[in-house]
């Protein structure tokens, strides 16, 4: 029983099989991300009412919050697939982890920049040591550490394992970092009040926010597949399936 499941997993996680399958999946993810994203933007920019406190500036929320969610989500995906790669020696999982890092870092960057652009009209300064922005900044550093370690080690296999272990250590630390930063922030909070969290949100604002979050997830799914395909090609560059594929191109 377990043996057959194992064989099944190995078959489906072979880079060659993945390469063929993913080609069919990517258009679906890409198109649905586009459709949902455009609809979410339409609802967010045209339909959602003006916020009574923040005016129109709150409309940044529709990209800021999904980007921040994504940066955390992708880190989780990265750590989980790195764990799978380390424990069960599945190469595809290592590739997914390596492919996720730049995407996650770009979302963390986006969350930071949009957060500070939102902060300027709200707080009067582009950067305020708000708990969430600070946590996001630390998350970006964690991504940089992962990518730096990944590229510093020449041997591909141990680069994957080493940076994967770092991602797992990071995941254990993220809640601790998050809560200590939050706690630190409540101590030092002077005039600035965290305005990002709304106790209750108007349903017309919530729906576009959730739609944008779904669109970002689908976008990530499409991009991570494309990037993992690249990783598969590069890492298997000396294997027969890649050679045959390239000759046909």
């Amino acid at each position, binding site marked *: 029983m377990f043996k057959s499941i194992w064989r099944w997993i190995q078959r489906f996680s072979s880079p060659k099989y993945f390469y063929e399958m993913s080609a069919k999946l990517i258009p679906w993810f890409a198109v649905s991300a586009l459709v949902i994203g455009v609809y979410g933007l339409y609802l967010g920019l045209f339909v959602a009412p003006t916020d009574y406190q923040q005016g129109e500036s709150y409309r940044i929320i529709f990209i800021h919050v999904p980007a921040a969610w994504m940066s955390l989500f992708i880190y989780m995906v990265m750590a989980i697939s790195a764990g799978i790669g*380390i424990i069960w020696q599945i190469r595809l999982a290592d590739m997914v982890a390596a492919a996720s890092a730049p995407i996650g870092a770009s979302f963390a960057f986006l969350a930071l920049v949009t957060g500070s652009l939102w902060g300027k009209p709200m707080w009067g300064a582009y950067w305020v040591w708000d708990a969430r922005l600070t946590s996001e900044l*630390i998350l970006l*550093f*964690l991504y*940089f*550490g992962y990518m*730096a*370690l990944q590229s*510093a*080690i020449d*041997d591909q*296999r*141990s680069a994957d*394992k*080493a940076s994967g*272990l*770092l991602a*797992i*250590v*990071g995941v*254990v*630390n993220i809640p*601790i*970092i998050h809560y*200590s*930063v939050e*706690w*630190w922030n409540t*101590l030092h909070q002077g005039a600035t009040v965290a305005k990002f969290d709304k106790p209750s949100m108007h349903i017309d604002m919530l729906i576009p926010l959730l739609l944008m979050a779904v669109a970002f997830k689908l976008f990530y799914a499409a991009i991570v597949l494309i990037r993992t395909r690249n990783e598969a090609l590069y890492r298997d560059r000396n294997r027969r399936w890649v050679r045959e594929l390239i000759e046909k191109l």
Partner: protein
Amino acid sequence: MLKAYYHLLFRDLRLAFRNRHELANPLIFFVLVVTLFPLAVTPTTEALRAMAPGVIWVSALLAVLLSLDRLFKQDYDDGSLDQLMLSPNPLVILVLAKVTAHWFLTGLPLVIMAPLLGMFMALPDEAISVLIYSLLLGTPILSLIGAIGVSLTVSVNRGGVLLSLIVLPLYIPVLIFGANAVDVAMNGLSVRGQLLFLGAVLALALSLAPLATAVALRITASR
């Protein structure tokens, strides 16, 4: 198992005492960095007190960071790390021994040096004692987390900056609570919560970090 632990611990301590001058370097660095701040800002008592907890804690953090290299570097270079991994004793215990030795050689001296720096920074007496407690609980965490970082980067040429990039973000909770404990103590408030938090993180690090370090060493050795 316990025997292996003590054996490795004393071996590391003996080796370190053979070149004593190297032992003092992180300490001197610690004092030096703290000295820079009154010179850079102002030496008035209020200004010093306001920045003291942060300055001392950041300097301690950097001093530990600089000394992390010697945790595994030499053993890696001369091949004794491979020997350790071949030994029949569980690697976790050996890692724990090395981290303990590292703490005795850097963390503990920093703790002992802290009262002097507290005086430099015009800290009141009760804050100095809290500074000692917080460093006592915090520096082992720094050694433990640092061990993961070094074991991942030990084989990388010029891994120094890489090591700080990896390790410093993980040090942030310790920094927040350690510095805050001293800050709060200056205002005469209870620091129980902060010290308990540091203790909890220490317990967590003590149970998980050696495992992660052992795995990391195996990864490093396999290349």
